[in-house]
C-alpha cells in the first residue's frame, strides 16, 4: 500500500551526523532519566496491563502519524501526536508511548538516527508530552473543564508542543555547529508555526470525537480491575 501523496515534511527526525558527540550524549542521558521516571509512573498506574495497553496505543500513534489530509499543491499534512497522547492518557504514559514510536522509527524504519535517538525522543516524545499536558491543564483548569475550553486547550497544547519540538531541534543543531541560530531558528519556527496549526486542528478534532463517543476516557484512567471484562466496552 503506497500512500498517494508526499507528506509535508515535519523536519524533526534528526539523522545521524547532525549533532555533535556532546549534544547527542547529553540528550541520551536526559532521555534515559526522564524515561526511567515515566516507566515507573506508568507501571504504577497500569500495573500488568502496561505492556499490552501502551503497546497498542503506540501502534495507534504510529498509524495516526501515517494518516494525512490534503493541504495544497499535492502535498499533505499529518500529525506528531505527542500532545494528543498526553491529553488522552497522561504525560507519563505518553512519554513511554512516544519513546517506543520514535525508537522503532529509528531502529526499524531509519526515520531518525541512532546516536541522536536520545535527542529525537526528547524533542518529539518527552518535551511535547510535558509541555502539551501543562498547556492543556492550564487552559481546561481556567475554564473549569467545559467543552470549548477542552478543545481550545487541546489546540493550544498541540500547537505549542510542535513549536517546542522545533525550537529544541533548532537549538541542538545550532549548539552542534550544524546550523546557524540566525537561520535555523526563524526558518524552523516559521514552518512549524503553520504545521502546528494542522497538529492543533487534528488533535482538537480527535478530542472532540472522543468527547462525543467516550467522554469517560478523557482525564479518567481506564479501569482494568478484575471485575471489568473487556466485553463491556465493546460497542
Amino acid at each position, binding site marked *: 500500500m503506497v500512500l498517494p501523496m508526499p507528506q509535508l515534511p515535519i523536519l524533526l527526525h534528526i539523522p545521524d551526523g547532525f549533532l555533535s558527540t556532546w549534544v547527542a550524549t547529553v540528550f541520551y542521558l536526559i532521555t534515559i532519566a526522564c524515561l526511567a521516571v515515566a516507566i515507573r509512573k506508568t507501571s504504577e498506574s497500569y500495573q500488568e496491563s502496561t505492556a499490552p495497553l501502551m503497546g497498542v496505543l503506540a501502534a495507534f500513534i504510529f498509524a495516526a502519524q501515517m494518516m494525512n489530509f490534503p493541504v495544497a499543491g499535492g502535498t499533505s499534512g499529518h500529525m506528531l501526536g505527542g500532545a494528543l497522547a498526553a491529553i488522552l492518557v497522561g504525560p507519563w504514559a505518553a512519554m513511554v508511548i512516544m519513546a517506543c514510536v520514535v525508537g522503532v522509527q529509528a531502529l526499524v524504519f531509519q526515520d531518525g538516527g541512532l546516536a541522536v535517538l536520545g535527542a529525537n525522543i526528547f524533542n518529539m516524545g518527552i518535551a511535547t508530552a510535558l509541555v502539551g499536558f501543562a498547556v492543556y491543564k492550564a487552559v481546561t483548569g481556567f475554564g473549569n473543564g467545559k467543552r470549548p475550553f477542552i478543545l481550545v486547550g487541546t489546540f493550544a497544547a498541540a500547537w505549542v508542543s510542535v513549536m517546542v519540538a522545533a525550537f529544541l531541534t533548532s537549538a541542538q543543531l545550532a549548539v552542534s555547529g550544524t546550523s546557524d541560530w540566525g537561520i535555523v531558528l526563524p526558518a524552523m519556527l516559521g514552518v512549524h508555526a503553520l504545521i502546528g496549526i494542522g497538529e492543533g486542528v487534528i488533535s482538537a478534532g480527535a478530542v472532540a470525537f*472522543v468527547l462525543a463517543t467516550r467522554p469517560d476516557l478523557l482525564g479518567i484512567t481506564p479501569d482494568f480491575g478484575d471485575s471489568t471484562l473487556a466485553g463491556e466496552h465493546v460497542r
Partner: protein
Amino acid sequence: MSYFALGERYQHGQGLLYRVDPRVKIVIAVAFAFAITVVHAGHWQAFAGFGAFVALAVGTSRLPLWLVLRRSLIALPFAAAAFPLIFTKPGDTIFTVPLLGWAASHEGLVHVGSIMLKSWLAVLLAVVLTSCTRPLDLIRGLERLRLPRVLAGTIFFMYRYLHVIGEEGHRLMRARDARSASGPDGGKSGGSVLWRARVLGSMVGSLFVRSLERSERIYAAMQSRGYDGTVRFSNERRLARRDWGVLLVAVLALGGLIIYARF
C-alpha cells in the same frame, strides 16, 4: 514511502552478517553512529577509514549495492538544515551566487560536506543493520540488551499490532477518500484546509477509541490465559564465538578510527 508495508526493509540473504546475533549488530550500529561524530570537519582520511568500515559491512552482508545506496538517501531532505552554512561560515570565498550575492566559503563547503558524509555513512550502516535483521529479531535484541522489560514488552506489542491498527487507519482513509477528501488527479474537494484537518482529527479520534477498546480486549484475553504482566521472549541465545569475533573486530576498528581521527 509506506509504513504499512512492514517487514519489507528486511531483505532475505545469505551473508555472514545475517547470522550474527542482533544484539551485536545493534551495538555496532549505535557505536558507529557515535564514533563518527568525533571526526573533525575536513579530516577526509578518517572519513575514508569509516567508509572502509561501511564497505566491509556491506560486503559481509552480501546485500545488493544498489539497494543499500537507494535506501541511504532517506536522510537527504534534512541536508537543508546544514546547507546555509556554506554561505554563513566565514572563510575564503570560492564563488558567489549570481544575483543574490551570497559568498560561498571554502570552510563552509568543507563543513557541510563533512556533515553530509557523517550522516550518509551512519545511515548506510543502519541500512545494512535493518536490511539483514528481521524486525522481530531487532526487538528481541533490544530486550536482551537489558532494555527495561516494560519498554521491551511495549515495543513488542506495538510491533505486533502495527499491522492491525495500520490497516484500520488505512480503511478510515479509504472511506474518507471515497466520500470527500480527494477529487480526480489528486485535486481536493469538500471544504477548506482546516475542515479537512478537522475531519482527519475525527478519524484519529475514532482510531484511538478503537485502539483502546482493542487493547482492553487483548488484555482480557491474555489475562484469561494466565498473563501475569511479564512478557516472555523465547530462545535466550548465548553469544556464539562468531558473534564475539565480529564484536571484537568492530570494537577494535572503531576504537582505532576514533584514535586516528582525534590524535
